[in-house]
């Protein structure tokens, strides 16, 4: 993959690996309602984005 900055990090072993089931995650959403990731997917595909912050 193209990257503008290369710090030499190998992400293949960081976090859940390709082929594994993504762990269940339960966190509050923007309305304060607890969301269980896999239940919320409802059997659909999903894009799970990790972003640093809503403030910077």
């Amino acid at each position, binding site marked *: *993959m*193209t*990257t*503008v*900055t*290369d*710090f*030499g*990090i190998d*992400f*293949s072993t*960081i*976090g*859940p*690996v*390709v*082929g*594994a*089931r*993504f*762990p269940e*995650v339960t*966190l*509050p*959403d*923007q*309305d*304060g309602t607890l*969301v269980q*990731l*896999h239940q*919320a*997917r409802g*059997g*659909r*595909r*999903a*894009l*799970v*984005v*990790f*972003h*640093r*912050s*809503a*403030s*910077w």
Partner: protein
Amino acid sequence: MLHDFATRYGITYTLLSDGGSKVISALGLLNTQVYDHHAAYGIPKQERVWGVPYPGVFVLDAQGCVVQKRFQQSYRERETGVGLLEQGFGVASSEHGTAVYGQAAGVQVRAYLDSDTYRFFQRLWLTVELTIAPGLHVYGQPMPAGYAPLSIDIAPVAGLVVGPPQWPTPHPLHIAGLPEQFYVYEGTITVVLPVTLTAEADDQTLQVTVRYQTCSSTECFVPCALHLPLPVQAADHIERPRRR
């Protein structure tokens, strides 16, 4: 904070808050190098930046298994929503930036970015679509010396980083009487390339040049260059006053 953020930007998908970075730590995604990365950009250490994840995306299938991971090396880098859909899911988005058009030597060219706006260090995808008239072809690579293969260039702008184009696979063509092996494109083809603006700048116009040579089985047009100006607005400039 997430509620206000979602309201301000019209976000309707689920935003999850990981207070105390517990989940990202458990998943092994806590960015333990964020201070070093800040330093690499020449930014003094700020403790408030600790606790962020490495920036990345998981694509899950219907069973919840990871089918793709896309991570960025730097907390600064990010993709557009359209880029994630198209590169992550392989789903063509109905929304793109405004297209510009050109036409020469039997080829129509349409070019557009993911978005009409850009953010600092955001990766945009430039899409260039060529529609080649029936009976004609343009040359791909590899290419014998002396011929002009399809190429796409963007004129340098301060801070502009252009990644390698993703070329479709050309098909081999042998022309009777010529010893060389050619690889050509016919019909409609699409080339995409990643574009990142790493300088905090104002609105820009990217000057895209598409070069190619069109031939039929019996004759060739002279090689041509289409110049396509693609304006892109600085989103930060729209959303808040410039950081000076």
